[in-house]
């Protein structure tokens, strides 16, 4: 039974079809990589799922419930959490406040001590506990990314959408990041992650979907996809030595 089902999703910007008749689905607990060249429509697809943009056509359902047509906050309360390709934190709030927001307004709607606990756990998960009372605007870029993930986690989501969350990490940090995500996967979270770092995708995702010019060009096992000629020409480049 598919948990997240995307059926014939279309997003049109003027004359440009950024997402063009895309269909695929995720099983509960699955972690899938969403690949594709720059501008192929990955972020747009994430935006469609999370409700940031209304779909021009098609339907998206989560656990049988239709998401298309719902407001962003409703979708969030259905258990969908996301990060942004360009980080968006709440600069005037402290870290703990940042993280508390989805705990309070998310689908579990905690308040008081419970919200505090969820927020603290989420911060601990990404290793920002000591800085809980710092102002979020003072964080480095990478810590802001961490904070953003913590915020997504504090929503206690069922589906996590990551948009290039690993980008910009150096190899050591990358390893840590991969470990973190794999822990999340092991905890049973369903994850759809956009990523350009192929090693990370290989390490985390047994299956990938690949987009090109808005269309789905592959939906298969990672190994197979990465040698798929269509994917190679469109995305990886010919002389990949993998």
């Amino acid at each position, binding site marked *: 039974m598919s948990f997240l089902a995307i059926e014939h999703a279309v997003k049109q*910007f003027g004359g440009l079809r950024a997402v063009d008749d895309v269909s695929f689905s995720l099983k509960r607990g699955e972690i899938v990589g969403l690949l*594709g*060249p*720059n*501008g*192929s429509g990955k*972020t747009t697809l994430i935006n469609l799922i999370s409700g940031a943009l209304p779909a021009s056509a098609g339907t998206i359902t989560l656990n049988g419930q239709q998401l298309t047509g719902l407001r962003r906050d409703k979708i969030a309360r259905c258990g969908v959490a996301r990060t942004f*390709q*360009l980080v968006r934190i709440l600069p005037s709030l402290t870290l703990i406040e940042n993280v508390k927001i989805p705990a309070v307004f998310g689908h579990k709607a905690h308040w008081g001590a419970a919200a505090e606990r969820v927020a603290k756990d989420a911060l601990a998960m990404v290793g920002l506990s000591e800085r809980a009372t710092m102002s979020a605007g*003072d964080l*480095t*870029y*990478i*810590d802001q990314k961490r904070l953003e993930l913590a915020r997504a986690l504090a929503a206690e989501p069922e589906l996590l959408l990551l948009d*290039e969350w690993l*980008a*910009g*990490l*150096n*190899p*050591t*940090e*990358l*390893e840590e990041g991969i470990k973190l995500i794999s822990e999340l996967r092991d905890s049973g979270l369903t994850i759809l992650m956009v990523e*350009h*770092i*192929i*090693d990370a995708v290989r390490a985390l995702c047994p299956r990938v979907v690949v987009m090109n010019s808005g269309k789905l060009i592959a939906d298969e096992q990672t190994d197979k996809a990465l040698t798929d000629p269509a994917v190679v020409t*469109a*995305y*990886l*480049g010919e*002389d*990949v*030595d*993998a």
Partner: protein
Amino acid sequence: MLEVENLTVAYGKHIALDNASISVQAGQMVAILGANGAGKSSLLGAIGGRARPQSGVIRYNGQSLLDMPAHKLAEHGIALVPEGRGIFPGLSVEENLRLGAIPKRAREGATETLAEVFNLFPKLAERRGQIAGTMSGGEQQMVAIGRALMSNPEILLLDEPSLGLAPIVVKEVFSALTRIRAKGLTIVIVEQNARATLALADYVYLVEVGRITGSGPAEEIKSNPSVERAFLGGAVAPVNA
């Protein structure tokens, strides 16, 4: 050509860069490697006029850059592609590129440079009329690099140019860098994609928590085992340069 001596950059009480010195020879490609938050962008930003250093000296062809307002740097042939790209999202791709050619040194021959840039990034030629802000992340990165090239720089400061780019584009960017370098441009690059960078660079500085902790010719650094572990460990998107 470029001398940085005892540079300290602080944000409030927080010292981002502590007494750092580097030197770049004309025609060289210098790489700066280091963990996140190590202070690489602060270093590059100080040279490019985006960050005000606490103390230290930056000399460019014998001239002190610190007395110069940020907007004068382009006129002296210094072009910065900052973290986050710094493009004009509300303008079209072509307008962004044309803005790159504002310094007097760039005006003459701007048409040829534009052709070169389009040649380097054919996608930009295709999308020249698109509003840059509606382009994907990778496309915007191309605009940023293309715009820097438009200013006919002597020295190009690149802050993580491959961030968020598809492997195929990363390859393109690095092969473009090879070509740019071949034209004699001096380049200072900050990158996480260490392997590809080291393959290109002449000289490397290592930065850790605000201090320069090592430096040497790229060949040497590449074979240094501790560097290998820290920066090349989980071979990242390998590239044949």
